[in-house]
Structure formats: C-alpha cells, structure tokens
C-alpha cells in the first residue's frame, strides 16, 4: 500500500512539474522546471524497473537537453519581448 502511495506521489509530482513548465511566465523558470521534470522522470524509470532508461534520462533528458535549453534561454532573453543587447 505504501508503494502505491509513493508512486502516486511521484506521478502527481510529474504532472505538476509538467504543468509548471508550460504555465510559468518566466522562461528561465520554465527551463528549470523542465530539468526537474527530467529528474523525476528518471525516478519514474527506476520504478518501472528500467535502470538503463533512468541513466539515459538523467544524462540526456535532464542533463543535456536542460543545458541546451538553459543556454538558449539565456541568449533569447528571459522573457517574451525584445532582444537583449
């Protein structure tokens, strides 16, 4: 039963961060939430008995994609609107 509770919490956290990625007004914040989402996904893969995917998700999904997006967000400016000088 405790297992179900923990998994339920993880799923809830996954969905919450997913919504937060899309809903947050600040682009930088959205990217940070996206990285958090990737880490939670890695946990979910561990729960699905898929350690290989968990490793790949942590390294590629959260790590590299996150850095790529962070860097892009920095260049594009944190918010909608004009280009930074």
């Amino acid at each position, binding site marked *: 039963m405790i297992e179900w509770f923990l998994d339920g919490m993880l799923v809830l956290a*996954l969905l919450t961060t997913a919504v937060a990625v899309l809903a947050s007004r600040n682009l930088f914040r959205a*990217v940070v939430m996206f990285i958090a989402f990737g880490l939670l*996904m890695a946990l979910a893969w561990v729960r699905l008995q*898929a350690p290989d995917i968990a490793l790949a998700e942590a390294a590629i999904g959260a790590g590299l994609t996150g850095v790529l997006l962070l860097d892009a967000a920095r260049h594009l400016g944190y918010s909608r609107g004009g280009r930074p000088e």
Partner: protein
Amino acid sequence: MTIHLLYAFAGVALCGIGLFGFIRLDHLLRKLMAFNLMGSGVFLVMVGLAQRGGQPDPVPQALVLTGIVVAVAATALAVVLIRRYYHLSGQITLAEPGREPVKKPAADAHREGPTE
C-alpha cells in the same frame, strides 16, 4: 492494475498536457519543451503498457532508449534553428512579421549566375 499501468496512465496525462502546450504556446522554446513533455508521455505509455503484467520487458525499454536519442537530436536541431532564426529576425515565434513588402516587378531584374 499494476504500478506499471499507473505510469502508463501518467503518460496518457502527459501526452494531453504536452499536446495542449504544443498547440497553444507561441514561444518556440516553450513549444519545444511541450514537445519533449509529450515525448516523455509516449515513452511512459510504451513501457508501462508493455509491462502491465509486472515483468520488465527489454524490447520497449530499448526502443525508448532509441527514442530518447532521436528526441534529443531533434531538440538540438530545433534549438540551433531557433537561435539562428532569432539572431536573424529578432523573433521567437512563428508569427509572420506583417505582410511582406511589395517587390518591384521584373523591370529591375539583372543578370545573375547559377547561385541567383
């Protein structure tokens, strides 16, 4: 109902959330993140549904590994394109920048090599 199936349904919800973001958001980086959320949802459905009996199934797990690499390749390509597009046009959405200026007809056309 096993735990695996619970994650499959989480994947279903993620697909819905990601799709909404993908078609609703204009900012290209946000669109890209929505695409990645949706992709994660698809991967969860793939593995969760196949493992509904509780036993791990290496085949969908291998497919998801392939899928993750393909997704990161697509994401990286998109980021490169978006950054260059932003650099050239100052825009971060796909909205047309007003109507295109009216071009003069062929009267001023001049001779050009094979590269136009």
